[in-house]
Each structure stands twice: as C-alpha cells, then as structure tokens.
C-alpha cells in the first residue's frame, strides 16, 4: 500500500464525465509522473486529488485513510497542490504568498521554513517584497512550489510545471524538484506533457488517455518502449 492509493476514480464537470475509473498508487518518497495528451484528464485527476473537485465514484486513500471533503481537509492531511498556470497571489508580495502557504499550520511558527525555502530559492529571497504578479514565469513557478512547501506537505501535486516556461528554465526547475525530493523525501505526483523531461525525473509513470490509465510501469521501461511513446506520447 502506497502513501496515496486511488481506486476506480470517476469525476467530471456537471454532466460531462472526464475520468472513467482511474487507479493509481504513489509510494512514499517517490516521484511519479502522469503523462498524456491535452484533454486526457490529467488536470482533472489532480483537482480531484486536492479536493477541488469531488469524485462521483471511487476512493482516495491517503496514508491508509480514506480522504474526502473540501480542499482544506486535503491540505491538512498533507497534500499540497501547485495548480496549472501557477496560481500565485498576484497582488500579494512574495513573502505574503509564502506566509499564506503556511496558513494551514495555524499558529505554529514557520519562520524556519521561510528561511529554508529562501535558501533553496535565492531568487525569491531577492524578490521577497515584490508582488507575485510582477515576477517572471519561472520565478512564479518557483514561488508556487515554495508556497506549497510551506504547508510541510507529504505529497506535492504539480500540474504541468513546465507550461509556458523556456526550456532552460524548465530544466532548472526539474533539477530543483529532484534535489528537493532527495533532500526532503517529499513525495511528488507530477502531471506533464513534456514526457522526456518528466520520465527522466520520475521513478514510475502512468499514461492516461480519455480518462483511463492505458499503461503504467517504471519510468525507464515506459520511456524505452517505442510503441508507448508513439501511441500516447507523440515523441
């Protein structure tokens, strides 16, 4: 049994159902990637895993316990979601963004966390008094990740972290994610269209198509299988 176990997950928007029975497992400490084309249901999967969307059927078990309810419940259980398009607070300063990241910690002090992530993301430290919306795309993505880390999550959900970033900046970001996973052991579930980069980072991969998992396996196996690459990943 993994840190996250998803069983027969169905979800959608109103009458439109998008997910038709997703099963996936994320082991503690692992980096798992979900690959798939646009519209395959990747973002919907993540939204369901952070409580933004309620499943119509199926179960989510986190750390062995069933998880359901509002996003706040998911956050308190230790799931942090970095949404697509970054989702920072554009009118608040970098530091205020990070402080809000620690909102779910309640009254616990979090100055050490703040110092630690400033250390890890020095660009953010330089820009701590600037408003989130004035940062570059890459910096905003770092801010979104750092804000999620302020929650002291056990599982980090990342939705298309490479979206809209220049290739070198994307590589930089993925290197930071790898380092983060090595340093802190934070488990990550990443949804990506950039298959090569994601497969290099992850240890296990799922391929999703039309709301269903069509294949899965260790990242190297999935990456080396030409038929999978041609059929689903378009690379």
């Amino acid at each position: 049994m993994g840190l996250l176990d998803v069983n027969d997950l169905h979800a959608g928007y109103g009458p439109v159902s998008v997910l038709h029975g997703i099963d996936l497992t994320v082991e503690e400490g692992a980096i798992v990637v979900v690959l798939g084309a646009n519209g395959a249901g990747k973002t919907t999967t993540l939204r369901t895993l952070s409580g933004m969307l309620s499943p119509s059927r199926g179960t989510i078990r986190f750390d062995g316990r069933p998880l359901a309810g509002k996003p706040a419940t998911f956050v308190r259980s230790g799931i942090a979601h970095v949404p697509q398009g970054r989702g920072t607070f554009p009118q608040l300063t970098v530091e205020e963004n990070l402080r809000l990241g620690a909102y779910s910690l309640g009254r616990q002090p979090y100055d050490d966390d703040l110092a630690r992530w400033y250390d890890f993301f020095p660009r953010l430290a330089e820009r701590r008094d600037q408003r989130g919306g004035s940062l570059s795309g890459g910096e905003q993505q770092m801010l979104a990740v750092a804000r999620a880390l302020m929650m002291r999550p056990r599982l980090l959900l990342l939705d298309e972290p490479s979206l809209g970033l220049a290739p070198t900046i994307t590589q930089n970001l993925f290197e930071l994610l790898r380092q983060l996973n090595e340093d802190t052991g934070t488990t990550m579930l990443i949804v990506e269209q950039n298959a090569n980069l994601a497969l290099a980072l992850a240890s296990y991969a799922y391929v999703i198509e039309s709301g269903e998992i069509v294949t899965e396996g260790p990242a190297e196996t999935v990456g080396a299988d030409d038929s999978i690459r041609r059929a689903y990943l378009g690379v």
Partner: protein
Amino acid sequence: MDATLFFNQVIGGLASGAIYGSLALALVMIYRSTGIINFAQGEMAMFSTYIAWQLTEWGVNIGLAALIAIGVAFLAGTAIQSSIIRPVEGADHLTQIMVTLGLFFILNNVAGWQWTFQAQVVPSVFGDEIFAVGDVRITALSIGTVIVLIAEVALLTLLLQKSRIGLAIRGAVDNADSAELVGISVSRMLMVGWGLAAAFGAIAGILVTPRLFLQPNVMFGVLIYSFAAAILGGLDSPIGAIVGGLVVGVTENLASTYIDFVGGDLKIGVALALIVGVLLIKPNGLFGRGEVARV
C-alpha cells in the same frame, strides 16, 4: 474673507467628512473582500441605527445601545452575505448590483413599515457639549467622530496588513482558487468582510443621525458622498477612503458657502462632479493601486 466662517465650514466639513469616510470604509471593505459595490451599505447602516434608537427608546443608555447595534450589524452582515450574496458570487456585475439594490429597497421599506418615515432624534454618543476656540465652535460629537474614524482605519489597516486572518482575506480576494488550495475557507472570509463592513456602516449611521435626524431615507445622501469619497481615495484603499471622505466633506461645505450657485441645493452635485472628475483623471483614485500583471 471671514476667517471664522471659513474655519467653521472647514470643521463642519471635517465632521461630515469623517462620516462619509466611515461609510466609504465599509464600501471599500466589501469591495476588497468580494469585488462588489454594495449599494445597500447606507440602508444597512440606517437599519442598524434604528436598532440603536429603538434600544434607547426602551431605556438603554446610548453608548450601550450603540455597541449592541454594532454587534447586531456585524452578525447581520455575515448573515446577508451567506444568504443572499453567496448565490450570486461569481455572477456578473449587473446581477450583483441588482441584488444589492434589491436589498436597499427591502431594508428601506421594512424600516419605514416598522418605524414609519417620521424623523426621530438619536442622542449623541459623545454628548451635546460645544467647545469654542475664539469664534470657532466645535461640538464634542465632531471631535468624537473624527477620533472614531481614525481608530477605525488604524484597526482595519492592522487587521488587513498584520494579522493572519487579514492576510487570508486578502488572499481570498486575490485568488480564490489558490486560497482554497492553501486551506482558506474563502466563503468564511467573505462573511467576515461583510460583517466588518456592516459594523463600520452602523458606526457611521449612529454618528451621523444626531445631526441629520433618523428616518429611513437618511443615509441616501450620505451614501452618494461616501461613493465619492471611496472613488476619490481609490476603491481598494482604507486610508484612501478616509482621506477621500474628509476631502469630500470639506469641499462640499466650502463649495456651498463660497460658490453662489451651488448653495445648499446643489451640494450633492459637488460629490457627483468629484466622482466624474476622479474617474476621468485618476481612475485608481489617490491611494488606489492598479493591478499588476505580467504575462
């Protein structure tokens, strides 16, 4: 130019301006927390003031009555938000404006039905003393009003800028989805925003009615001046609301005294001219911040 007349008008203007500022603060509070311009803000204030007045009629001391009315206003504000505003959250602006206008008429009519349209005298929380400095006269109510206003803005600024809940409110306003993702209950923050605004409005109503008399339409003119104040100061700035209120109050008084054709009848036109002028020259107001966006 007669100096005494001038100073009396300025001081009278500051006292009314403090009231406009107080109600403008309520408008700003709701605008910042929900993006809605609440046209019913004045009527909510009027209704709260009736509650205070009714309590004094039943023999309650005005100070205590005011505190009770402010507390009731806070609770009523949260209730209004969760019952009639929440369903139109995210609806377009016109829908939201119609809902607050509807609330305006409902409160106005219920007050008239319950308490009639006859003017009532509300006692002043700060007593009826008048201080004289030379020939310039200042009432205790004027001084008290200005002090209360300063306390309000200090409190609100502290709350929004320094406290955990204030940061959460600003986050909820800035990006509701991300706020949910860090564990903030956005709807609860909006309820608090409406509650605070209603309380600020109640304070404005209780401070203004000793001068204007209490009747269901009393806040209508005040609301127009408060709009002018909020727009002048910048709709998202508490400090701006206060400065805007004071400027509008003094301008209105001086214009009606020194510009012949304005007089008492066209005073409200001064407020409207200010609104139009500010929107033309500086749409974000004196203290408003434009939005930053980088794509």
